[in-house]
């Protein structure tokens, strides 16, 4: 399994190391640096790198590479998944406002994921249903593919050993799910009810996937008119964002980004609302739109100046879209009820819905 672990920051310093078996010299990371150089971008560094005596398996998060050193055959996902959990744990531990003085205490509980003797004065359980739409929209505005990635994140602060059940109005929607280990699978299989003893605090109860085979509602559209001409060094740029199938909810937190082709020198644009930036170095255009008012659709118009003498770009840029819709789960998923057994007090329960754009791209 994992022999050693090295943490490497953005400037290429190994700032932390940990060895579980005998010590592996940090010079093994040189192979990693080589691969990093070849890959030009951090994103393209291969997650598995063979070296003469070891294998380096890495994950890249928060601008840090977590490089595990392996000596023999192991399922690579085992290591990768583990490293991601390590990062999650770091995030959990260091991310909270006050890093405790207490070192984490070992816990042995009959329920492995819940410590014993939990006590709260206010007993509460909150569930957030969050759905992300991944979509590719083509030039003409039709959907090429659209999928929903949903999760139910929970924050449960309940005294003792509560046993919860959560049921849905339309569990049929959840045909592709993965569970936190606390969920009793058999109960779900037979009754479509989530029955579980929750871990204490924040955790992801389940995530689900509504695949491209289903019809997914697309809550926004983009009207675009981007053209470069061969003859002139000026191009036209015009985009308008509007709501589509929002079930009457407001679309907010809209953010449009687009990677312009290399030939673009600068952009002179006027937004009808929000602020925009074009970075002439990275050629990244971003427009922070904010809320969409259906009466007055936000638009961004202007001209693009191209490098003189170069031919016009082959392809119009793709537009990436971010947005948020509160109080709506776009798949239509609805929680029916939450019940608690095993404890006598009356907890406070809450549920929130939200739809967001995941990888939402419009090809132009």
């Amino acid at each position, binding site marked *: *399994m994992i022999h050693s672990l090295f943490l490497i*920051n953005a400037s290429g*310093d*190994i*700032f*932390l*190391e940990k060895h579980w078996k005998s010590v592996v010299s940090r010079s093994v990371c040189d192979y990693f640096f080589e691969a990093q150089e070849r890959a030009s*971008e951090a994103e*393209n560094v291969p*997650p598995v790198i063979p070296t003469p005596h070891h*294998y380096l398996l*890495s994950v*890249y998060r928060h601008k*840090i590479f977590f490089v595990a050193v*392996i000596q023999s*055959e*192991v*399922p*690579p*996902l*085992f290591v990768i998944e*583990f490293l*991601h959990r390590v990062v999650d744990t770091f995030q959990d531990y*260091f991310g909270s406002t006050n*890093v*405790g*003085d207490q070192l984490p205490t070992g816990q*042995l509980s*009959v329920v492995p994921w819940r410590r014993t003797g939990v006590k709260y004065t206010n007993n509460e359980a909150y*569930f957030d249903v969050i759905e992300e739409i991944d979509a590719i929209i083509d030039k*003409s505005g*039709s959907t*090429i593919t659209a999928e929903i*990635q949903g999760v139910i994140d929970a924050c449960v602060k309940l005294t003792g050993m509560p*046993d919860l059940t959560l049921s849905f*109005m339309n569990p049929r*929607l959840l045909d*592709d799910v*993965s*569970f936190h280990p606390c969920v*009793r*699978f*058999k109960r779900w299989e037979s009754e479509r009810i989530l029955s579980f003893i929750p871990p204490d605090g924040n955790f992801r109860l389940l995530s689900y996937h509504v695949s*491209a085979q*289903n*019809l997914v509602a*697309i809550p926004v559209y983009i009207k675009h008119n981007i053209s470069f001409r061969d003859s002139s060094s000026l191009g036209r740029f015009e985009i308008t964002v509007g709501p589509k199938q929002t079930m009457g909810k407001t679309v907010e937190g809209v953010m449009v980004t687009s*990677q312009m082709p*290399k030939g673009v020198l600068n952009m002179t644009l006027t937004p009808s609302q929000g602020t925009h930036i074009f970075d002439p170095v990275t050629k990244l255009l971003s427009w922070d739109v904010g809320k969409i008012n259906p009466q007055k659709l936000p638009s961004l118009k202007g001209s693009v100046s191209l490098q003189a003498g170069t031919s016009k770009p*082959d392809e119009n840029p793709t537009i990436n879209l971010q947005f948020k819709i509160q*109080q709506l789960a*776009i798949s239509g998923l609805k929680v029916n*009820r939450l*019940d608690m*057994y095993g404890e006598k007090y009356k907890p406070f*329960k809450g*549920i929130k819905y939200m739809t967001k754009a995941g*990888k939402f*791209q419009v*090809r132009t």
Partner: protein
Amino acid sequence: MSGNGLSYSEQGGEAAPELAQEVVPTTTPSAPAAFGLFSSDTKKNEDLKQMLESSKDSAKLDAMKRIVGMIAKGKNASELFPAVVKNVASKNIEIKKLVYVYLMRYAEEQQDLALLSISTFQRALKDPNQLIRASALRVLSSIRVPIIVPIMMLAIKEASSDLSPYVRKNAAHAIQKLYSLDPEQKELLIEVIEKLLKDRSTLVAGSVVMAFEEVCPDRIDLIHKNYRKLCNLLVDVEEWGQVVIIHMLTRYARTQFVSPWKDDEVVEEYSENNFYESDEEQKEKDQKVKNTYTMDPDHRLLLRNTKPLLQSRNAAVVMAVAQLYWHLAPKSEASIVSKSLVRLLHSNREVQYIVLQNSATMSIQRKGMFEPYLKSFYVRSTDPTMIKTLKLEILTNLANEANISTLLREFQTYVKSQDKQFAAATIQAIGRCATNITEVTDTCLNGLVCLLSNRDEIVVAESVVVIKKLLQTQPAHHGEIIKHMAKLLDNITVPVARASILWLIGEYCERVPKIAPDVLRKTAKSFTNEDDLVKLQILNLGAKLYLTNSKQTKLLTQYVLNLGKYDQSYDIRDRTRFIRQLIVPNEKSGALSKYAKKIFLAQKPAPLLESPFKDRDHFQLGTLSHTLNSRATGYLELSDWPEVAPDPSVRNVDVAESAKEWTGILSKTKKEKPIEKFYSESEEEEDESASTSASESNSGSGSEKEDKEEGSSDESSGSSSTSEESSDSESDSKENTAKKTSRAAAERQFSPGKFLGGGSDSEDIKKKAKGISKKRSTSSSSDTESTSSEESSSDSMSESGSKSDSGSGKSRSATSSKKEEKPVQDRKAPNKQDVFLLDLDDFCPVTTPVAVPTAAVLSPSLTADLEGLSLSSSSVIDVTTQVSVPRKTHELLHRMSGKGLAAHYHFSRQPGIFGDRMVSVQVTVTNTSDQKIENIHIEEKKLPPGMRMHEFNPIECLEPAASITVSMGIDFCDSTQTASFQLCTKDDHFNVNIKPPVGELLLPVTMSEKDFKKEQGMLTGMNETSATIAVAPQNSARLVIIERLVKAANLGVVPSGQDNIHRFAAKTVHSGSLMLVTVELKESSTAQLIINTEKTVIGSVLLRELKPVLSQG
């Protein structure tokens, strides 16, 4: 010690600030000045030593934190060993832990000093606290000092029979460490492994299997007796252990069971309970079909018990199950893993990378697995390049006749990508599609030729290379392309591309006799400035021309050979010498030069364009070796299936000695108590309470069913659910008192506020639920039934919660068992529709029965709904309904084979009324018998993936000699695949099928000539197919042409300004892609037939069908 918990980060030089920024929000250290002073000192660790000697625990703890910090940063802290080791016996558990961390790091370097600490551990091994016992064992086994091997061995043995499963788990971990320290201990360690394998705790299982894999993976005999137990424990083992166990069991199964793949055509028993059918039944079966493959129940057990783990949140577990199914399951079952693998594609980049690699290997051998998920592999511009190319790889593997046009369109987008490396890979992919799918070879070739005029050199170069390979596969009629490429030579500078063009011209120089010598002339001029690769090909071209056309090229070739003779590269000099000897006849050259032409212009085999993932599955999927495509150290080969299964009885567990639990599996008694409970230690009480409450409430039905399904082992869920019910009644009284508040809260649940109230037995919910279930259509029975059951249960809820709970549970289980018969109930659906965001299927059952052929009535509300959901945006082009419908009826069922029931169908050419992607089909059923035929309906639809069918409403009764026409809709997905189904009457079933002529997959479109030309202009290149046809003289009149074409295909006529050109437009029913047909009459009664469409496959089929239409008299 508030605040200075992480003060060590102040001390450690350069790396410290980064650490602080990236991960650790620094807390202000209490005495930074003091540390700062010391850190510059030469004896900088002096302060740490002092702190360690201090009498105060807080100082010691601070020191230890700093020291551990130093270790983490890779600094040497070994000189502190004596000072640290003294604290190993500290009473403070925090200090103790950190000292352990230190010891594990440095004990190997300072063995003598480390021995000082051993006695402390030995004492700790006897500590009453299981945590301390376990950690002592952990540290002891991590101290890599050979002298203490006997002590470790003893400690492991003792720990392996500890009462605490946690300590036993640590014993299993220690086994691996001791083995790596001293492999001599193997035999003794195997004994411990054997003992721990028998352990029934879920905590131990994963760890001991891990030890087994490290120490003695070949001793599968140790697994036999534990096999069933491991299978049954698996669901409850922690996730990391699951991965290890699944991989081990995969290997095990491949040595113990026979291949389930041999007779794939033999229908394998699917239903779970069949597997536990009685022995006699089994025997009977065996006798009936001698060679029928029957899966070993143990084999089935493994498959069944791993399947739920596909739902794990852990990607490694999902992948492990996926590879298990790949290597062990009957081929028909392996596809259940694809959905879960596709789900993982939304995970992190690294997970995606591994999953895509494995999916690529799978998709080569079994396309069908991923075909339904084709679109999930579409590439986004923000994907990293390595992910993009892997997705492309899978898309290419999945390409087939049905989806190729969609894919090629998608590829067109990729070719234009700003990521040029990816664009180049796409061109390769197009090349592979072209060779694999002959229908599109020409289309692809045309498309690639278009790319030759691309501005980007990489794209052009890659296109040239791929075209070269394609032309090699069918060089017959591609003189034009070669000429075109010859022209390109002036502009292309990429060596590979230049070399490819030269090779092509040389190879087919006889097809371009005028151009080839000229190319040689030009390249001879630039010879000295060319890349080596190009030079070799110039020589090659010269040689070939010399042999075929020596009159024109003799001098040129000799000039080139002379240049080559004095080239700097010896490769080129060598090649020059070789060629000269071969082609220029002289005394020395001898016999070989006679055959020079045969040698140079031999028929060369076309290169195979293959996936790099081909054959990669000789490595077990999901392994490191598979990812690297080379054998990693310690890779364990997956053996081939044995011809004859080894004795299965080795897995039988002796009833006397074994726990009674897993006899359930063997002896087919379904009601045995299962083995392990979920949380073994504590559940005893719960169980008792559950059993009492179960006798009261009728919740038994649920758990009983589960038992049947699962055979055994899963009472955990059953028992806990019953226990919930018992506690429910307790909590219910409370809930009633809190009713008022909960009612208010419940109301909010449906309003935007979304705060879910507790009890939820408030009347508001009832009403709403009722309202909803009324409003909603009864689309799928399971769902409706569940809502209605909720309704009914909430009606009776006022009494006790537990009652209603079990009630709904019951009705649910009833639902699932009834599933088979549901469609009949569905028919009686209320009319009102409620738009549901997902599942178009919801709409389908809303049939207003349509009996009159042309009545395309859509209820207005439904149209609006559909419009809201329809995603097509083209509004410019209107679909027209054909005025004169040429009626061509096809036979669906002959009256002889239908026992008097005859059926014909024709395509009504109306826009689909059941959904805008459906082709309308009118079926006329006639009763030719002399008796009433009752209940004519459709069953057993066998549709290719993606296709959907909307069946007609059952005909209750058909009188003798009566006939009735009904409508149905079929979504053919723009393909000419056959829709098979059964036409059923009350008593009989008849297999029938409908195969659409390609012309019926279209809907006519009206557009102006101008629009037509504009659209046509956008559909050139790959999207155009054409043919020259002979036109019979009587067919050249405009009206005749229109009549004939419109009869053959559902096309709309476009007005034309020219007499000799006739245009027709249509769009495909499923995807709405335009289909433009042009007939241009030429002299001598020929015509050019041109079809422009994105759907190239349909386009070429249509072309084929239209060709004879005008030539026949």
